[in-house]
């Protein structure tokens, strides 16, 4: 997900719940579909959504996904052709294996024998229908972008042509052609956009912003995933009660079938969620950061998992003072990232690279040779920064929690120590902040803004090239460096992983030594899970907790129990 999770209206704490799955002992709930006679199975109760207006997922349509919460629930009821496993590898989900042509442009996937929850067989034609629908002009999918390397994408997505490089060679053979050799294609192809839906369902989705069968009609939300929705008529949730999704095992799931129900609640505030966990109602909960110190030693319950979410400062290079590299470097060297982490998380998790430190990425190194905290060095750069002492500007950040306010306040204090006397923190409502990070800084007049990114797929390209190439879609700073662009473009189409890693590392050093961006932190998901819950593991690629993987990389739902 490339967007910061929507900052909820502040109710006092950081709302940082990665689709946290919690388990509640509510035995006695019987599954309506469990093959034989009715079997009693347990239920896992999770704080699936923290939302002051008690909304559940923004959408249940994989082509319209907006944030990590949507992804979490969609992934439980749907499957894709390929997915990322817990080590960051691409593995088959709805396929058995695949082949790649020698020119690295044609991929052939052999589909596995599987069924949707309505009993329909999964075929290559379903995959074609789903992808064509997701990328079609009329769908206007905000996540179509991730398939842009598929041949014919540009014209097809613009509605100018009906050709798209995705076709069914036979009932079980799916062929995808890319427009050029792309090193990260398979990883991008794991993105949620490529979820396989039943082609009969696809015909009836009627995707408009004003209605979408997948989201509005529970009966039509059919997937090949381990779970299916327990519908209330055509509704997903019972009217007049606290909103929740109740998921039950999908009797047609091809893999080891789960023996639990999933109860995903929408909870108004993170305090309420935390209190519900303490009272025993939730099986797991995202931990409000102020309670970290209380739980950090409790290894049976407390879990800290690195995520792919990074936070960095974007500085406006269109205009003074940050069109001068010394001003940017004074900023980059002047921030004590350890202190910030300590204030926000009670432990140090600073970040000195563009790519977060995890095994799943190519091109991550330890951040040697780029700006770290050094006040003397910062001040020496500041001495060469014209107008830095007199410039009056605001440091914009998304307000909404005590943590975010404390963070910005502390950071501005550090910058003032460096010499930026005229900087003041400016906490923005989500609206304003989204505007500031949503368009080039010379358009908004923003000078400095706290920015963030969550990976779409675990590959360095998703950070290094996508964010910081000259006039890249998500670059707002206006920074351009031809050598950086050359290195990253070369890396994006290199099939030798060692060469790729070296190229990305070189590119990152160039960027960071230009003070662009100023890396701050790698976000960790903190949550509490009842010690009695079995079968879960905490992995980076889940951004939190997910079922332990089987040897073939597929999640072992059969092993999960309350």
């Amino acid at each position, binding site marked *: 997900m*490339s*967007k910061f999770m*929507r900052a909820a*209206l502040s*109710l*006092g704490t950081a709302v940082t719940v990665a689709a946290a799955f919690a388990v509640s002992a509510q035995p006695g709930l019987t599954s309506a579909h469990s093959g034989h006679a009715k079997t009693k199975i347990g239920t896992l109760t999770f704080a699936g959504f923290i*939302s*002051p*207006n*008690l*909304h559940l997922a*923004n*959408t249940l349509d994989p082509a319209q996904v*907006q944030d990590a919460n949507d992804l979490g629930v969609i992934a439980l009821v749907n499957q894709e052709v390929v997915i990322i496993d817990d080590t960051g590898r691409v593995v088959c989900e709805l396929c058995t294996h695949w082949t790649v042509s020698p020119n690295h442009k044609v991929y052939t996937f052999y589909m596995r024998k599987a069924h949707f929850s309505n009993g329909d067989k999964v075929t290559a034609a379903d995959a074609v229908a789903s992808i064509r629908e997701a990328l079609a*002009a009329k769908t*206007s*999918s*905000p*996540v*179509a*972008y991730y398939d842009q390397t598929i041949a014919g994408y540009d014209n097809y997505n*613009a509605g100018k042509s009906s050709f798209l490089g995705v076709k069914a060679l036979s009932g079980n053979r799916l062929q995808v052609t890319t427009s050029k050799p792309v090193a990260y294609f398979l990883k991008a192809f794991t993105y949620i956009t490529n979820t396989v839906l039943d082609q009969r369902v696809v015909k009836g989705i009627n995707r*408009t*912003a*004003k*209605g*979408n069968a997948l*989201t509005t009609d529970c009966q039509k939300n059919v997937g090949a995933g381990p779970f299916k929705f327990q519908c209330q008529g055509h509704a997903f949730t*019972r*009217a*007049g*009660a*606290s*909103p929740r999704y109740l998921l039950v095992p999908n009797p047609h799931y091809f893999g080891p079938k789960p023996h639990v129900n999933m109860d995903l*609640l*929408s*909870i*108004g*505030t993170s*305090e*309420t969620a935390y*209190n*519900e966990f*303490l*009272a025993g*109602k939730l099986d797991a909960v995202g931990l409000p950061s102020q309670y970290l110190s209380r739980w950090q030693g409790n290894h049976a319950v407390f879990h800290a998992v690195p995520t792919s979410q990074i936070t960095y400062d974007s500085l406006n290079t269109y205009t003074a003072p940050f069109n001068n590299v010394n001003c940017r470097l004074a900023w980059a060297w002047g921030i004590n990232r350890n202190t910030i982490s300590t204030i926000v998380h009670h432990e140090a998790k600073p970040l000195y690279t563009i790519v977060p430190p995890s095994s799943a990425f190519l091109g991550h190194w330890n951040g040697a040779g780029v700006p770290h905290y050094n006040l003397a060095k910062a001040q020496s750069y500041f001495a060469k920064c014209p107008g830095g002492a007199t410039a009056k500007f605001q440091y914009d950040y998304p307000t909404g929690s005590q943590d975010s306010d404390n963070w910005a306040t502390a950071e501005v204090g550090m910058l003032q120590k460096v010499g930026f006397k005229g900087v003041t923190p400016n906490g923005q*409502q*989500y*609206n304003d902040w*989204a*505007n500031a*990070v*949503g*368009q080039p800084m010379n358009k908004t007049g923003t000078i400095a803004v706290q920015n963030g990114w969550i990976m779409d797929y675990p590959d360095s390209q998703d950070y290094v090239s996508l964010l910081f190439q000259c006039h890249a*879609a*998500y670059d*707002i700073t206006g920074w351009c460096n031809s050598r950086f662009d050359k290195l990253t473009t070369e890396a994006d189409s290199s099939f030798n992983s060692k060469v790729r890693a070296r190229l990305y590392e070189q590119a990152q050093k160039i960027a960071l030594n230009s003070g662009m961006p100023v890396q701050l932190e790698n976000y960790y998901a903190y949550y509490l899970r009842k010690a009695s819950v079995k079968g879960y593991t905490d992995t980076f690629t889940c951004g939190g907790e997910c079922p332990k993987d089987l040897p073939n990389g597929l999640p072992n739902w059969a092993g999960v129990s309350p």
Partner: protein
Amino acid sequence: MAFLSFFIKRFIAMIVVVWAITTLVFFLAHASPYDPIRLILGQKYLGDPRGYRVMRHLFGLDQSVWQQYTNYLGGLLHGDLGYSEEQTALGTPVWDMIRSGVPQSVKLGGWALLVGLLVGLPSGLISALRQNKPVADHANQFVMMLMFAVPVFVLAPIAQLIFGVELKWLPVAGWGDPGLLGVKEMIMPVGLFAMGIAGYFSKSFRSFLLEVLSQDYIRTARAKGLKQRVIIYLHAIKNTLLPLATIIGPTIAFLVTGAFIIESFFNIPGIGSITVTAATSSDYPVIEATTILIAIAVVVMNFLTDVFYAMVDPRVRLE
């Protein structure tokens, strides 16, 4: 006849006020410096300018404001309130949001109102009868004002912690579960909400009573025998019920907008929190719908009160 013409005049005035509010809130909402579609797309806006245009067209936001206004009024007359433009509820018909939310807000507010009255009125009564006594009036009123003014976002986590986590008497949160659980779930939110209402009514009732008690005939009655005194006090209380009826209208609006914190803390799917989220995220159709809904409730309540007065006291009609 006088009554009928009074009735018609007031009725027309009511319609005009509702129309004026509709217009006011429409233009107020559309004066927003924010673009709801831009907000929905967030960073994706940069990568997908075409999708932005498609969505603006879909919501009719590419039309002129006047065109949008006439469309909106036309829709209102047909009972079409439009579609939510907020990220988490995108495309949901506003009518569905209102229809599912209002009964829950009414359930919460109705019980809170009842409990609030049952606590607030006796407290106000004691306070007025024992005016300026340290405990019966001062301490009593202080507690009531505290209940009215201490923010519920401070009290709610305290209550959850004590009654839900420590004592485990009540569920921490939840709403609408069947059976006894559903009843237990209501106790905390209704109780906390009722505190504010009780404070408000206690203060009001004390004032109304003091006013009546200072009337000459009551002062005379105090000098007389007990039996007569009781009768007159009862009469006085009866007379304070009329002004109490007039604050019911504003209380409705308070119940809806004031409930949003309670609803968030206790997972109650009402319209208070929907309204607040809409106001802070430029969700025009929802802001408009909830504002108009509350306004209609208040205006109708005032209208009924006026009519009630006119029936009780004929001189009002001549005014």
